[in-house]
């Protein structure tokens, strides 16, 4: 369906923009520090941005931490590969429990680290983040495509009613 493809393309574009911003902050850090600080502050409500827990590019930290980067970039890659495995015209709905399974390792990693039982490393943060982020599009894309289609139908129906009343 053409309309679903358009919605999907917008979602891919917005996700790419979000991921690009994460890399833009360190890229601007040396040459345009003021612009970099605006980009960093844009991401600050969604991440602690602690230097020791971030990947680095050009000796400056990324816009978000390793775990968040893993989630966002794997979300983006999973979103890009979505049409290869699912039809956009009639997206399939995943089982309800896969998301809990995908989230469990990350939750365990965070909780055990907070309790001081296990020290989460960059590798555990990255693996658990990738696991969660790559499953997420399976749960986001079908309701988003369906929801936008429904909203569009509702608006078109209302618009049709409006013009019908006006014609009378």
């Amino acid at each position: 369906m053409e309309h679903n493809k358009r919605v999907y393309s917008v979602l891919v574009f917005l996700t790419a923009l979000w991921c690009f911003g994460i890399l833009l902050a360190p890229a601007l850090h040396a040459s345009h520090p003021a612009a970099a600080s605006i980009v960093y502050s844009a991401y600050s409500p969604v991440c602690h941005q602690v230097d020791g827990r971030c990947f680095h590019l050009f000796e400056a930290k990324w816009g978000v931490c390793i775990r968040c980067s893993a989630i966002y970039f794997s979300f983006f890659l999973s979103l890009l590969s979505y049409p290869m495995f699912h039809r956009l015209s009639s997206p399939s709905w995943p089982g309800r429990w896969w998301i809990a399974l995908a989230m469990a390792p990350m939750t365990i990693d965070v909780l055990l680290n907070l309790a001081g039982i296990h020290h989460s490393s960059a590798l555990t943060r990255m693996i658990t983040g990738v696991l969660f982020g790559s499953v997420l599009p399976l749960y986001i894309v079908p309701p988003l495509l369906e929801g936008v289609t429904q909203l569009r139908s509702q608006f078109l129906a209302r618009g049709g009613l409006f013009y019908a009343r006006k014609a009378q």
Partner: protein
Amino acid sequence: MLEKPNKLRISLICGIAIGAVSAIPGISLINCCCCAGVWMGGVLAMYLYRQQFTEGMPPLESSDALMLGLMSGVIGAFTATVLNVLILTVIGPVEQELVKSIVGRLLDRLVEQGGLQSDMADTMKEQFEQSIRDAGKLSNIFWSLFMALILYPIFSILGALLGFAIFRPKNPPPTTMVQ
């Protein structure tokens, strides 16, 4: 046929919950994990909305999740800003102090382990000091509101869509497709 339940009431409840979670010092740190507090607000909105449905009502749809997420996110952004200003006025920049102390300890640990140079740690501590000094500035409050009005609806919609995928009816009606 009965009408669907009112979305505004659920959005208000969840928007206020999102705002409270995002503004209360300590609890607000949950948003440091990909805006988890806002996501959960979206999921909660979907769960509560689903509970309002009775027999004879039209079925729950994905578009309901989109609208609920959007409304909750916008209300949450305004609530968080208002609560932040109230907390700043009444008890000062508690959240920034809290983050500073946690990050300060983390940085010290990293310096001890050799993972970070001490001058870099000092620079970061200075940045936190600066953020505490800037916390009450009007421009900062408007910047926070602006960012919240972009980020909260996005993450709240994602949460509501996730909630819909989890709590959706077992036999959903066929979707009306528009060419």
